[in-house]
């Protein structure tokens, strides 16, 4: 329980920094921190393998890509523009509404866990891998096609510039 509250009080401000900081580099670093916190949440939820993949893929790869793009554009902090203030208010309103709605649904009773103690190897590499390479084999193979398409698409787009 203590762990959860610590995580919650670190994650929410970090997530707000991502969204509200004017300097995109700070946003990206705050996102790295948020993702790391989420990884710790995964450990608390006994998803050990996923927790490490979270750090390797998100923090180690995706965020590096984003930082690269920020540097490539040499971005400067954006100035708040006055004509958008009504839009901002709307944005806050809609987001708050969404948050309330989701929070209400999430806080409803979801029924007790079917068993107090789960299988001993829950969340271990073996259990996740067995599931991934048997039941979810088709999505796994399709993933490679998705990655291929993303790679080719990104290369085509990026090369057209030069």
């Amino acid at each position, binding site marked *: 329980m203590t762990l959860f509250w610590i995580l919650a009080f670190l994650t929410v401000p970090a997530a707000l920094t991502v969204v509200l900081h004017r300097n995109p580099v700070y946003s990206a670093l705050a996102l790295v921190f948020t993702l790391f916190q989420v990884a710790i949440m995964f450990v608390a939820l006994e998803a050990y393998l996923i927790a490490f993949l979270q750090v390797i893929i998100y923090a180690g790869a995706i965020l590096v890509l984003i930082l690269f793009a920020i540097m490539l554009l040499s971005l400067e902090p954006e100035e708040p523009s006055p004509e958008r203030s009504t839009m901002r208010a709307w944005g806050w309103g809609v987001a708050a509404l969404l948050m309330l709605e989701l929070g209400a649904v999430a806080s409803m009773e979801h029924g007790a866990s079917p068993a107090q103690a789960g299988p001993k190897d829950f969340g271990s590499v073996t259990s996740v891998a067995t599931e991934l390479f048997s039941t979810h084999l088709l999505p796994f193979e399709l993933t490679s096609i998705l*990655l291929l398409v993303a790679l080719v698409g990104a290369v085509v787009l990026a090369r057209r510039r030069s």
Partner: protein
Amino acid sequence: MDTPVEYYLVLAAILFGIGALGVLIRRNVIVILMSIELMLNAVNVTFVAFARQQWSVDGQVIVFFVMTVAAAEVAVGLAIVLMSFAQRKTINADEINLLRW
């Protein structure tokens, strides 16, 4: 784990809302992409929390695929941003309002 799964679900809902806020109020396309990442992560937390509650690793396997989708989305999204920056010298979402170049 003595924390009820609802706590994690509410936290995920808050994270998702913050991500949605970023998409709505920010104009920097890269920050919008980061906000989308935040929302995807909130969904991942939900998946893992439910997997823990049901003692089923299916939820964890799905997170794999969500991560892959996130990576593909960012790679292509940023390529589009770079390309549009080269053409129009802006990454302001309000000014990138044409679907053609």
